[in-house]
Protein backbone atom coordinates (compact mmCIF):
# COMPACT_ATOMS: atom_id res chain seq x y z
CA UNK A 1 0.00 0.00 0.00
CA UNK A 2 2.74 2.45 0.96
CA UNK A 3 4.66 1.77 -2.23
CA UNK A 4 1.66 2.51 -4.47
CA UNK A 5 1.10 5.86 -2.77
CA UNK A 6 4.77 6.71 -3.31
CA UNK A 7 4.48 5.75 -6.97
CA UNK A 8 1.57 7.99 -7.81
CA UNK A 9 3.14 10.86 -5.93
CA UNK A 10 5.62 11.21 -8.77
CA UNK A 11 3.03 10.87 -11.50
CA UNK A 12 2.60 14.60 -11.85
CA UNK A 13 5.06 16.65 -13.88
CA UNK A 14 5.50 19.04 -10.96
CA UNK A 15 6.81 16.39 -8.59
CA UNK A 16 8.66 14.37 -11.21
CA UNK A 17 10.68 17.39 -12.35
CA UNK A 18 12.80 17.80 -9.19
CA UNK A 19 13.10 14.03 -8.72
CA UNK A 20 14.50 13.67 -12.22
CA UNK A 21 16.89 16.54 -11.57
CA UNK A 22 18.30 14.79 -8.52
CA UNK A 23 18.67 11.46 -10.32
CA UNK A 24 20.46 12.70 -13.44
CA UNK A 25 23.95 13.23 -11.95
CA UNK A 26 24.01 9.77 -10.38
CA UNK A 27 23.13 8.01 -13.61
CA UNK A 28 25.49 10.18 -15.62
CA UNK A 29 28.42 9.45 -13.33
CA UNK A 30 27.60 5.76 -13.17
CA UNK A 31 27.39 5.66 -16.97
CA UNK A 32 30.77 7.36 -17.35
CA UNK A 33 32.47 4.99 -14.90
CA UNK A 34 30.94 1.89 -16.45
CA UNK A 35 31.80 3.11 -19.94
CA UNK A 36 35.42 3.64 -18.91
CA UNK A 37 35.58 0.13 -17.46
CA UNK A 38 33.82 -1.36 -20.46
CA UNK A 39 36.08 0.37 -22.95
CA UNK A 40 39.14 -0.76 -21.04
CA UNK A 41 37.88 -4.36 -21.03
CA UNK A 42 36.84 -4.25 -24.66
CA UNK A 43 39.82 -2.49 -26.15
CA UNK A 44 42.65 -3.55 -23.87
CA UNK A 45 41.92 -6.56 -21.70
CA UNK A 46 39.91 -8.81 -23.99
CA UNK A 47 42.20 -10.93 -26.17
CA UNK A 48 42.31 -10.79 -29.93
CA UNK A 49 39.90 -13.23 -31.49
CA UNK A 50 41.32 -16.16 -33.43
CA UNK A 51 38.93 -15.85 -36.38
CA UNK A 52 38.01 -12.20 -36.59
CA UNK A 53 41.16 -10.57 -35.25
CA UNK A 54 40.63 -7.25 -33.57
CA UNK A 55 37.61 -6.44 -35.74
CA UNK A 56 35.37 -8.31 -33.30
CA UNK A 57 35.89 -5.55 -30.73
CA UNK A 58 33.07 -3.70 -32.44
CA UNK A 59 30.62 -6.00 -30.64
CA UNK A 60 31.30 -4.10 -27.42
CA UNK A 61 29.39 -1.23 -29.00
CA UNK A 62 27.18 -3.01 -31.52
CA UNK A 63 25.49 -5.51 -29.22
CA UNK A 64 24.75 -3.10 -26.33
CA UNK A 65 23.42 -0.56 -28.83
CA UNK A 66 21.16 -3.15 -30.47
CA UNK A 67 19.87 -4.38 -27.11
CA UNK A 68 19.18 -0.82 -25.97
CA UNK A 69 17.43 0.05 -29.22
CA UNK A 70 14.94 -2.76 -28.66
CA UNK A 71 14.69 -2.27 -24.89
CA UNK A 72 13.96 1.44 -25.26
CA UNK A 73 11.19 0.74 -27.76
CA UNK A 74 9.55 -1.65 -25.32
CA UNK A 75 9.84 0.88 -22.50
CA UNK A 76 8.49 3.59 -24.80
CA UNK A 77 5.53 1.41 -25.74
CA UNK A 78 4.96 0.66 -22.05
CA UNK A 79 4.74 4.36 -21.18
CA UNK A 80 2.48 4.91 -24.18
CA UNK A 81 0.14 2.23 -22.85
CA UNK A 82 0.16 3.86 -19.40
CA UNK A 83 -0.53 7.26 -20.91
CA UNK A 84 -3.53 5.94 -22.83
CA UNK A 85 -4.85 3.80 -20.00
CA UNK A 86 -4.55 6.42 -17.26
CA UNK A 87 -4.80 9.51 -19.48
CA UNK A 88 -1.44 10.46 -17.96
CA UNK A 89 0.49 13.39 -19.39
CA UNK A 90 3.80 12.54 -17.76
CA UNK A 91 3.83 9.00 -19.14
CA UNK A 92 3.38 10.44 -22.63
CA UNK A 93 6.19 12.92 -21.98
CA UNK A 94 8.49 10.07 -20.96
CA UNK A 95 7.69 8.23 -24.18
CA UNK A 96 8.33 11.43 -26.12
CA UNK A 97 11.71 11.75 -24.41
CA UNK A 98 12.67 8.13 -25.03
CA UNK A 99 12.17 8.11 -28.79
CA UNK A 100 15.20 10.15 -29.94
CA UNK A 101 17.59 8.17 -27.73
CA UNK A 102 16.09 4.91 -28.94
CA UNK A 103 16.50 6.03 -32.53
CA UNK A 104 20.11 7.03 -31.83
CA UNK A 105 20.98 3.59 -30.43
CA UNK A 106 19.32 1.99 -33.43
CA UNK A 107 21.42 4.13 -35.74
CA UNK A 108 24.57 3.23 -33.80
CA UNK A 109 23.69 -0.47 -34.03
CA UNK A 110 23.21 -0.16 -37.79
CA UNK A 111 26.43 1.82 -38.29
CA UNK A 112 28.58 -0.48 -36.21
CA UNK A 113 26.91 -3.52 -37.71
CA UNK A 114 27.87 -2.34 -41.18
CA UNK A 115 31.46 -1.66 -40.13
CA UNK A 116 31.64 -5.07 -38.50
CA UNK A 117 30.17 -6.76 -41.53
CA UNK A 118 32.70 -5.46 -44.02
CA UNK A 119 35.86 -7.03 -42.59
CA UNK A 120 34.18 -10.20 -41.34
CA UNK A 121 31.67 -11.12 -44.06
CA UNK A 122 32.93 -8.97 -46.92
CA UNK A 123 30.03 -6.57 -47.25
CA UNK A 124 28.73 -3.54 -45.41
CA UNK A 125 25.12 -4.57 -45.75
CA UNK A 126 24.10 -8.16 -46.18
CA UNK A 127 20.34 -7.94 -45.71
CA UNK A 128 20.51 -10.40 -42.86
CA UNK A 129 17.47 -10.76 -40.63
CA UNK A 130 18.76 -8.90 -37.59
CA UNK A 131 20.13 -5.86 -39.42
CA UNK A 132 17.07 -5.62 -41.67
CA UNK A 133 14.78 -5.78 -38.65
CA UNK A 134 16.94 -3.17 -36.94
CA UNK A 135 16.48 -0.92 -39.97
CA UNK A 136 12.71 -1.35 -39.80
CA UNK A 137 12.88 -0.54 -36.08
CA UNK A 138 14.58 2.74 -37.04
CA UNK A 139 11.65 3.47 -39.35
CA UNK A 140 9.26 2.76 -36.48
CA UNK A 141 11.09 5.25 -34.27
CA UNK A 142 11.11 7.86 -37.03
CA UNK A 143 7.42 7.28 -37.64
CA UNK A 144 6.61 7.90 -33.98
CA UNK A 145 8.70 11.08 -33.91
CA UNK A 146 7.29 12.29 -37.24
CA UNK A 147 3.69 11.76 -36.16
CA UNK A 148 4.31 13.63 -32.91
CA UNK A 149 5.80 16.54 -34.83
CA UNK A 150 2.98 16.57 -37.37
CA UNK A 151 0.21 17.12 -34.83
CA UNK A 152 0.05 20.53 -33.25
CA UNK A 153 -2.05 19.87 -30.17
CA UNK A 154 0.24 18.18 -27.61
CA UNK A 155 -2.41 15.97 -26.01
CA UNK A 156 -3.68 14.81 -29.38
CA UNK A 157 -0.11 14.17 -30.42
CA UNK A 158 0.37 12.16 -27.20
CA UNK A 159 -2.62 9.93 -27.88
CA UNK A 160 -2.08 9.44 -31.62
CA UNK A 161 1.60 8.61 -31.26
CA UNK A 162 0.84 6.29 -28.33
CA UNK A 163 -1.60 4.32 -30.48
CA UNK A 164 1.06 4.19 -33.19
CA UNK A 165 3.73 2.98 -30.76
CA UNK A 166 1.47 0.23 -29.47
CA UNK A 167 0.51 -0.88 -32.98
CA UNK A 168 4.23 -0.91 -33.76
CA UNK A 169 5.06 -2.89 -30.63
CA UNK A 170 2.48 -5.54 -31.50
CA UNK A 171 3.84 -5.77 -35.02
CA UNK A 172 7.55 -5.92 -34.15
CA UNK A 173 7.57 -9.69 -33.41
CA UNK A 174 5.58 -10.31 -36.59
CA UNK A 175 7.93 -8.16 -38.65
CA UNK A 176 10.97 -9.86 -37.14
CA UNK A 177 9.56 -13.32 -37.77
CA UNK A 178 8.69 -12.48 -41.36
CA UNK A 179 12.11 -10.92 -42.06
CA UNK A 180 13.84 -13.94 -40.48
CA UNK A 181 11.83 -16.27 -42.69
CA UNK A 182 12.53 -14.10 -45.74
CA UNK A 183 16.23 -14.17 -44.98
CA UNK A 184 16.41 -17.96 -44.74
CA UNK A 185 14.56 -18.29 -48.01
CA UNK A 186 16.89 -16.02 -49.90
CA UNK A 187 20.24 -16.54 -48.20
CA UNK A 188 20.10 -20.28 -48.44
CA UNK A 189 22.85 -22.21 -46.72
CA UNK A 190 25.42 -19.42 -46.69
CA UNK A 191 27.51 -18.31 -43.77
CA UNK A 192 25.56 -17.69 -40.62
CA UNK A 193 25.72 -13.93 -40.52
CA UNK A 194 24.88 -13.69 -36.87
CA UNK A 195 27.87 -15.75 -35.75
CA UNK A 196 29.70 -13.86 -33.08
CA UNK A 197 33.06 -15.10 -31.88
CA UNK A 198 32.86 -17.83 -29.29
CA UNK A 199 32.27 -15.91 -26.13
CA UNK A 200 35.17 -15.94 -23.77
CA UNK A 201 33.94 -14.88 -20.34
CA UNK A 202 35.84 -11.65 -20.55
CA UNK A 203 34.09 -10.73 -23.81
CA UNK A 204 30.70 -11.31 -22.24
CA UNK A 205 31.72 -9.23 -19.24
CA UNK A 206 32.77 -6.39 -21.48
CA UNK A 207 29.47 -6.49 -23.35
CA UNK A 208 27.44 -6.51 -20.14
CA UNK A 209 29.39 -3.62 -18.66
CA UNK A 210 28.89 -1.59 -21.83
CA UNK A 211 25.20 -2.47 -21.84
CA UNK A 212 24.75 -1.12 -18.33
CA UNK A 213 26.78 1.94 -19.30
CA UNK A 214 24.43 2.51 -22.24
CA UNK A 215 21.41 1.93 -20.04
CA UNK A 216 22.44 4.44 -17.39
CA UNK A 217 23.47 6.93 -20.05
CA UNK A 218 20.06 6.56 -21.67
CA UNK A 219 18.31 7.11 -18.35
CA UNK A 220 20.32 10.26 -17.69
CA UNK A 221 19.71 11.72 -21.15
CA UNK A 222 16.03 10.79 -21.16
CA UNK A 223 15.49 12.35 -17.73
CA UNK A 224 17.07 15.62 -18.88
CA UNK A 225 14.98 15.59 -22.04
CA UNK A 226 11.85 14.88 -19.99
CA UNK A 227 12.62 17.90 -17.82
CA UNK A 228 12.87 20.05 -20.95
CA UNK A 229 9.59 18.68 -22.23
CA UNK A 230 7.91 19.33 -18.89
CA UNK A 231 9.12 22.93 -18.89
CA UNK A 232 8.00 23.45 -22.48
CA UNK A 233 4.58 21.89 -22.11
CA UNK A 234 3.67 22.99 -18.61
CA UNK A 235 4.61 26.60 -19.24
CA UNK A 236 2.38 28.88 -17.25
CA UNK A 237 1.98 26.53 -14.33
CA UNK A 238 2.59 28.18 -10.96
CA UNK A 239 5.12 25.64 -9.75
CA UNK A 240 7.41 26.46 -12.65
CA UNK A 241 7.87 30.12 -11.70
CA UNK A 242 8.66 29.04 -8.17
CA UNK A 243 11.24 26.51 -9.33
CA UNK A 244 13.03 28.26 -12.16
CA UNK A 245 11.72 31.84 -12.29
Amino acid at each position, binding site marked *: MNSSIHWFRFASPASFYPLAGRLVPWFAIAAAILAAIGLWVGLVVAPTDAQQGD*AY*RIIFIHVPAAWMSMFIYVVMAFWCAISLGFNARLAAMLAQALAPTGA*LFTAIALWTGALWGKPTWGTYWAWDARMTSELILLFLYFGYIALRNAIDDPRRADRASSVLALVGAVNVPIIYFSVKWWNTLHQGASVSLSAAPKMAAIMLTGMLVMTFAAWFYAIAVVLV*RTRSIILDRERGAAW*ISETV*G
Partner: protein
Amino acid sequence: MSDFLTMGGYGFYVWGSYLVTALLIVIEAVAVCARFKASRRAAADAGRGR
Protein backbone atom coordinates in the same frame (compact mmCIF):
# COMPACT_ATOMS: atom_id res chain seq x y z
CA MET B 1 50.65 0.88 -28.77
CA SER B 2 50.77 0.85 -32.54
CA ASP B 3 48.90 -2.42 -32.50
CA PHE B 4 46.25 -0.70 -30.40
CA LEU B 5 45.91 1.98 -33.05
CA THR B 6 45.93 -0.30 -36.06
CA MET B 7 43.78 -2.99 -34.41
CA GLY B 8 45.53 -5.70 -36.37
CA GLY B 9 44.76 -3.99 -39.64
CA TYR B 10 41.11 -3.42 -38.83
CA GLY B 11 41.69 0.03 -37.42
CA PHE B 12 39.39 1.75 -39.87
CA TYR B 13 36.44 -0.42 -38.87
CA VAL B 14 37.05 -0.55 -35.14
CA TRP B 15 37.90 3.10 -34.70
CA GLY B 16 35.28 4.09 -37.25
CA SER B 17 32.77 2.43 -34.96
CA TYR B 18 34.05 3.68 -31.62
CA LEU B 19 34.75 7.25 -32.69
CA VAL B 20 31.47 7.76 -34.56
CA THR B 21 29.58 6.32 -31.59
CA ALA B 22 31.44 8.60 -29.20
CA LEU B 23 30.70 11.55 -31.45
CA LEU B 24 26.99 10.75 -31.65
CA ILE B 25 26.75 10.29 -27.90
CA VAL B 26 28.53 13.58 -27.24
CA ILE B 27 26.30 15.37 -29.73
CA GLU B 28 23.17 13.96 -28.12
CA ALA B 29 24.31 14.79 -24.61
CA VAL B 30 25.29 18.34 -25.55
CA ALA B 31 22.09 18.90 -27.50
CA VAL B 32 19.92 17.62 -24.66
CA CYS B 33 21.65 19.88 -22.14
CA ALA B 34 21.44 22.86 -24.47
CA ARG B 35 17.75 22.24 -25.00
CA PHE B 36 17.21 22.02 -21.26
CA LYS B 37 18.98 25.30 -20.66
CA ALA B 38 16.91 26.96 -23.38
CA SER B 39 13.68 25.54 -21.97
CA ARG B 40 14.56 26.69 -18.48
CA ARG B 41 15.40 30.16 -19.74
CA ALA B 42 12.14 30.35 -21.67
CA ALA B 43 10.13 29.13 -18.69
CA ALA B 44 11.83 31.67 -16.40
CA ASP B 45 11.18 34.47 -18.89
CA ALA B 46 7.55 33.45 -19.22
CA GLY B 47 7.21 33.44 -15.46
CA ARG B 48 8.76 36.90 -15.09
CA GLY B 49 6.78 38.26 -17.99
CA ARG B 50 3.49 37.64 -16.23
